[in-house]
């Protein structure tokens, strides 16, 4: 437990089955994320306090042995086929009793955070988050370096005048930071 937390043996097998059921898959996306995400999840779990780590282990065993109650199939989760595992986990995740939903929810959030923060997943979905951040940082640095007098005026509260589009704003700022403030303002 604690920062040295590792998933070994049986709990690891269950965790792998849960991750395998929960990671995103698209026909056009040719990467199986299961092992990478499992490693990320394990790293995240190390940052959780021991009591949550114990709770996670408890939920894993709960899912392993209790999930057959939520059908389909009778085998423990880690020995079930993926589509069966998914069907059971979905039933649990939508159960009317919140405490039962909790068996899945923390794992779902941890796994989704790991999977959807991946640059390849982001890029597949049309997000270039790292590049976006870099251009923002660079733009802001240039903006701050520009003559403060030329910075765009702070707008008044809503309802007086239009809101410019993001594209207009960005080209305005870029031109401003390049020292073409008047041209930009025009």
């Amino acid at each position: 437990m604690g920062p040295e937390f590792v998933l070994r043996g049986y709990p690891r097998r269950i965790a792998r089955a849960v991750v395998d059921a929960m990671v995103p898959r698209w026909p056009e996306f040719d990467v199986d994320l299961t092992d990478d995400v499992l490693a990320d999840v394990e790293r995240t779990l190390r940052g959780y306090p021991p009591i949550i780590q114990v709770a996670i282990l408890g939920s894993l065993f709960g899912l392993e042995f209790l999930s057959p109650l939520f059908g389909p199939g009778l085998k423990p989760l880690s020995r079930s086929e993926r589509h069966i595992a998914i069907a059971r986990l979905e039933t649990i995740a939508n159960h009317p009793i919140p405490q039962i939903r909790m068996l899945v929810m923390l794992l779902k959030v941890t796994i989704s955070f790991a999977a959807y923060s991946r640059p390849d997943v982001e890029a597949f979905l049309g997000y270039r988050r790292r590049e976006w951040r870099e251009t923002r940082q660079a733009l802001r640095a240039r903006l701050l370096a520009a003559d403060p007098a030329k910075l765009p005026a702070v707008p008044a509260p809503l309802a007086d005048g239009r809101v410019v589009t993001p594209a207009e704003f960005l080209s305005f700022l870029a031109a401003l930071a390049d020292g073409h403030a008047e041209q930009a303002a025009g």
Partner: protein
Amino acid sequence: MNERVQGHGPVDFIAEEQKPAAIITPADTRGDLFITADVVVVGSGAGGATVAATLAEAGLRVVVLEEGDWFPTREYSASVPSMLSKLMRAGGATAMMGRSPVPYLEGKCVGGTTVVNGGMCWRTPERVLHEWVSERGLPELSPRGLERHFEEVETTIHARYQDEGSQGGVNDAFKRGADALGWKLSRNKRNQKHCVGSNDCVTGCPSGAKQSTQYSWLPRFFNAGGLLYTRCRVKQIVTERGRATGVRGVLADPWQPRRFTVNARAVVLACGAIQTPLLLQRNKIGRECGHVGRHFTIHPNIKMSARFSSPVENLQGTHQAWQCIEFRDEGILLAPGAIPLAFMSAIFPEFGPRLAERMRDARYIATGGILVDDHSEGRIRALPFGVPWIQYDVTDADQAKFVRAAALMAELYFAAGAEEVYTPFHHLPVIATPDDIKRLYQRPPRVEDTEYFTAHLMGTCRMHGHARGGVVGPDGQAWDLPGLYLADASVLPGTIGVNPQVTIMAIARLVAEKLADRLRRV
């Protein structure tokens, strides 16, 4: 006086490059620490940093102890799990129990929760302040009494409207809907300097635009000679002859277990609305008044989102440029809220293949939230072995507000041109057409069917004009223990219905000024 470093050069902002000498990490010291100061402040978030700067500028020797680490802005990475582990308590895996568990986040780093918040800056509504004056016996908290503190806070944290156009498509879509319906919007002031819409508020602003306490109060504190020790977890409040005279705790040095002791003329706790009452309870302080850990309000929220036919580019823009205040009198606030992809994946009830299909449309999905003024009160208790127990039940009356608000939000999104609206209600996760909105009323979702979230934790050691009504008096001093002051979200006398950081900072200023006066007189 302070154990080590005494002088240091001027500090402009502290998050950008080199660690200032005034921030002392375990690597900078050896062995156990024994420190003496006029005032020891525990916590460097909204309340702690404000108190510390105010006291240090009044000429007092002040030490801040912070349990979390210091991270320069360049270390705020794009990886959500890694940032949650670095910046949040328990890696962000925190939830309160009740009819439906409510996840929440607490910052644990230099700057506290101000490092991970959305940056919205609202003064306490006047109606709330009048209530505090009349019902809680706190004339100091009148709008007039707090006016100059609000001004000072807003100047220091740079509470300003966004630069035109930086808001991004999610905010635009929201505005389009509100405008179409003729609903009143209010532009948000945010504590930012030229926010360029990186949309990463919750994992630490990567451009340095957000003026968290790292960029605002802490530089003022350091410039006035203050010192901040990181990775110091306060566990014990030391008392002598019925007065608080210092604190003790453990220093999280990765190499060896170490301890620290700080002796001071006054102790200020600013650990936040959850950690402050827990610390008091573990030290058996405030038992007599019976209010520690009670009156917990959370300004709960639910997430709504909608898919549009053209991209709204959730990635680009600011978290929340405006709010819809049309229904304020009913205690309902509707707001856009751009969030990174990973957070978006967490707000949908699906997972695996279904979630993957939903997320295909991520660029077309605008996310938002609904906040309601809550009428329920939760409770925080320290169980044996240091385990916290946090209980909060959303009431049926508040749930009725959520249902109405969800219907309004769906209406707004459809008016903005949405093709489909997503709710946090398990039995009706998708509203496919405007006509479907009525299904929310036909079979209203129960509390148990709803996924909530909260970011506004308050009131667990409330301030009150009378010793029997709260934990601290109007000067922030604990009724039960002279020398112990509280100055964070826990002292808010009740729910405020708006984002709380400005209120917390204004009250922290008030507490600090009174404390400085008192210490100078003695």
